[in-house]
């Protein structure tokens, strides 16, 4: 008997398929693409926060030897932006500059030194306008509009009340109101933004290499900005050095480089600096939150009222979606009724914010889990018991019509309670040490893409040719999160083949099918399901071929990956023989797999924008954070993190662990040290020393528990793993600090100086109390 069995490719620890390129230095990122004769691009940026443009003087720069072209706002009157309803941005400012660092002109020169020298010769004359650096200042009654179409500088306000909050608060045993402030933070991915554009003037074709999460959006926006038919544009995504959301939108650097390339009819490479990368921004906005929760003695939440103001920056970007997420994602984690939300997204004269990992949900979750923890303490309830009192009963729909099918939060909560030794340790921690817990959740892909033209939500193709190689063609953007590995594993699993048989080609619009890209944690769920569909379609073709070859009925054919046979006694045909048979009719085989989200997952219509938050599956996370606080210096050390993440089914345990650890750690940066600060609109923190990213020396061990709730719609039951664990860290940290020293921090980041100041304030207050009682 032969012992051939299908290869199993999911559920194990699988190193990433593109790892060898990355560890050997062979992986090419956009800035690594060079060719003889390629020009260097550099951008001239506004030194003013807000002003009417009177003149952009490029005469002296043009005369500099080696300068080949300069483009300004006069070269392009089109606008771009990620949301079809809010395309307010010019690649190069026209008429007005709206933030310090906004691109005004760009130079292509024979080398970078010449391009930089030319940029320094460009002069901008403006009539300065009043500039607003906070949401409050921009909303003041006498503030002028930063965009004429947005009076009051209100990009979008959202108001809904579902249920009856007044009645809910009346039923509560305890009602508390708190305000929270979360500083603006930036993705600060390791690869600085870059673009290479090549214009073929003879054929009128443009090729752009872009460090993007969504090549399709770059393609769309290039077409719009260049006023070129999409079929004349090719977008290539090389290796991408991280995104975390800032590369979801098309960035001005890609568009500007293309404008330069067209002007000179050749190739231009623009690699912007770290400082410029910070200023390009698209990070998480500064957020002010007022939150009221009503809680019963048994731990049930009776009502929630939430106000949220976001300082969005000078252009719309993702703003409308962010402020909607912040409201809708109050739901789908606990069983909430009687919820009122007022969100305001405000335009200011600071660089535009965007979608940062955990888009729209993080700051709200920080506020919610902080207040819940505080109120649990006041009612003498265990924080775990309060979460358990409010679980959803899945499958269910929330009051705002979000579809929840699989719900592993209870298992996550149980896991971190057990793993951290919470019950035994919580009340026996030494002085200055504390434990805190919190929960969070996230979507596995937005059910309705923002640029939807009606086709399936994901399409994957598989090519099979005479050599027996299975080539997956996908537009899903590998940005380091492991999407290509997951797609290869998925196809290999369906076909029962070893991973080494499968290759994948991504990121070239000439070859791969269109994809909506890597954002909102959509790839595993949506593209994974399309890959399964494609692989099943290929398997059907192979089974039919095997049936012809073995003179059997297709329903009798057994697929063992490398062997197809008609029953256990049959010698069968090898995979390679079946491929030859399959190709006889049609030649090279290409199959398609599609996936579309179901209408029930599209969210509701109870308020304008209620579709935002709809997804096929929510991931869940619970965390326990252990801290030590040095009361003499205010330094907080995270000693250990236990995190459990419900990803439905871990297709790859190695990458799930890596994604969850990375999320927790990124949450730690936001909670403890990261902050984008400005002085009169000048970004003061546009480098990695002043923008304090945690180093290896600041970073704790992070123990990951994987919870598998087997989502009924997920590919092999899987949901997302790369975002949902970020948010819970922030409140778990501040809850742990409260446990350690009895002080609650409502403002982020919790830096040593803030901790020290709070401890000193308490000492002074206690001293006064002692003095006054001593004197009485």
């Amino acid at each position: 008997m032969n012992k051939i069995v299908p290869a199993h490719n999911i559920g194990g620890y699988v190193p990433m398929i593109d790892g060898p390129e990355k560890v050997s230095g062979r992986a090419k990122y956009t800035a690594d693409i060079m060719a003889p004769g390629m020009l260097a691009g550099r951008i001239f940026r506004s030194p003013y926060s807000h002003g009417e443009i009177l003149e952009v003087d490029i005469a002296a720069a043009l005369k500099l030897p080696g300068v080949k072209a300069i483009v300004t706002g006069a070269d392009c009157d089109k606008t771009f932006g990620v949301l079809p309803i809010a395309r307010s941005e010019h690649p190069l400012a026209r008429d007005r500059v709206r933030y310090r660092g906004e691109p005004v002109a760009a130079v292509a020169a024979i080398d970078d030194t010449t391009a930089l020298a030319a940029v320094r010769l460009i002069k901008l004359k403006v009539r300065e306008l009043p500039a607003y650096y906070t949401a409050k200042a921009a909303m003041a009654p006498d503030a002028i509009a930063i965009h004429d179409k947005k009076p009051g500088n209100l990009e979008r306000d959202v108001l809904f009340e579902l249920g009856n909050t007044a009645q809910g608060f009346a039923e509560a045993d305890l009602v508390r109101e708190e305000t929270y402030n979360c500083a603006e933070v930036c993705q600060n991915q390791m690869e600085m933004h870059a673009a290479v554009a090549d214009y073929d003037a003879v054929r009128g074709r443009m090729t752009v290499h872009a460090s993007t999460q969504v090549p399709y959006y770059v393609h769309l926006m290039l077409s719009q900005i260049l006023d070129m038919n999409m079929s004349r544009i090719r977008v290539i995504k090389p290796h991408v050095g991280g995104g975390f959301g800032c590369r979801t939108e098309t960035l001005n650097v890609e568009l500007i480089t293309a404008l330069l390339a067209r002007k000179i009819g050749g190739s231009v490479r623009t690699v912007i600096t770290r400082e410029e990368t910070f200023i390009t921004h698209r990070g998480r906005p500064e957020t002010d939150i007022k939150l009221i929760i009503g809680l019963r003695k048994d731990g049930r939440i009776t009502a929630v009222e939430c106000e949220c103001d976001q300082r969005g920056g000078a252009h719309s970007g993702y703003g409308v979606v962010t402020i909607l997420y912040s409201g809708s994602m109050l739901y789908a984690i606990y069983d909430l009724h009687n919820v009122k939300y007022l969100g305001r997204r405000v335009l200011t004269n600071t660089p535009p914010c965007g979608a940062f990992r955990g888009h729209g949900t993080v700051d709200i979750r920080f506020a919610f889990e902080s207040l819940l923890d505080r109120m649990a303490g006041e009612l003498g309830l265990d924080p775990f018991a309060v979460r358990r009192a409010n679980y959803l009963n899945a499958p269910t729909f929330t009051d705002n019509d979000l579809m929840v099918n699989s719900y592993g939060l209870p298992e996550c909560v149980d896991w971190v309670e057990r793993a951290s030794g919470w019950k035994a340790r919580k009340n026996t921690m030494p002085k200055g040490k504390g434990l805190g817990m919190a929960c969070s959740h996230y979507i596995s892909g937005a059910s309705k893409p923002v640029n939807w033209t009606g086709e399936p939500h994901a399409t994957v193709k598989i090519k099979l040719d005479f050599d027996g190689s299975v080539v997956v063609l996908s537009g899903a953007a590998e940005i380091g999160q492991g999407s290509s590995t997951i797609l290869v594993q998925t196809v290999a699993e369906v076909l029962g083949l070893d991973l080494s048989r499968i290759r994948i080609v991504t990121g070239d619009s000439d070859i791969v099918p269109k994809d909506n890209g890597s954002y909102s944690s959509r790839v595993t769920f949506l593209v994974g399901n399309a890959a399964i569909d494609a692989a099943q379609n290929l398997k059907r073709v192979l089974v039919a071929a095997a049936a012809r070859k073995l003179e059997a009925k297709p329903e009798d054919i057994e697929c063992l990956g490398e062997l197809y046979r008609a029953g256990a006694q049959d010698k069968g045909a090898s995979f390679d023989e079946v491929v030859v048979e399959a190709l006889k009719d049609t030649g090279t085989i290409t199959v398609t797999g599609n996936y579309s989200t179901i209408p029930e997952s599209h969210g509701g219509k109870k308020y304008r924008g209620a579709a935002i938050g709809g997804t096929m599956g929510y991931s869940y996370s619970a965390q326990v954070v252990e801290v030590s606080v040095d009361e003499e210096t205010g330094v907080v050390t995270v000693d250990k993190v236990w995190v459990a993440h419900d990803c439905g089914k871990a297709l790859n345990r190695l990458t799930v662990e890596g994604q969850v650890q990375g999320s927790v750690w990124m949450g730690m940066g936001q909670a403890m040290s990261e902050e984008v600060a400005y002085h009169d609109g000048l970004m003061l923190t546009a480098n990695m020393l002043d923008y304090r990213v945690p180093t290896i020396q600041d970073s704790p061990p992070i123990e990951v528990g994987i919870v598998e709730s087997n989502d009924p719609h997920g590919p092999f039951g899987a949901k997302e793993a790369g975002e949902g664990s970020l948010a819970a860290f922030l409140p778990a940290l501040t809850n742990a600090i409260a446990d350690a020293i009895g002080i609650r921090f409502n403002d982020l980041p919790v830096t040593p100086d803030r901790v020290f100041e709070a401890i000193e304030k308490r000492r002074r207050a206690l001293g006064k109390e002692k003095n006054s009682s001593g004197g009485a």
Partner: protein
Amino acid sequence: MARILAFVLNDRARTDAVPGNLLLLDYLREVVGLTGTKTGCDGGECGACTVLIDDKPTLSCLTLAASVEGRRVDTVESLGTDGQLSAVQRGFHEKLGAQCGYCTPGFIMASAGLLRKNPNPSEAEIIAALGSNICRCTGYVKIIEAVQYAAALRAQGIAP
């Protein structure tokens, strides 16, 4: 002013005319075409450009090309023998010490430098050796595991 630079790059002797103000990082990437060494910041903030100069991890963005005259410089491209990954490369690949991969060449060279000096480092020694490299993807947990695994592979005789 250009000057003649003679040194050993990845085991090969090289002689080039280089401007006196050219950074080693830009020389490696733009002149030689070895793009494995990455630019991650505006100077000395992130460690992505780490190379070994006479086995010592050094930031190539803060080093003038002309200053490596007569020295031995190793970049990530020097690692591995006969097409096989080196111990440190295998550690970062197999233990997922690399996600997006952009900081990885810097981390790998800093780790290779550590293991050449100290073949069996403690966790604290690994953390100290990688303190000036920033990674934005991993949270560093698997980077520590990668270096520990690399040390174990090296003990089995695989080149670091």
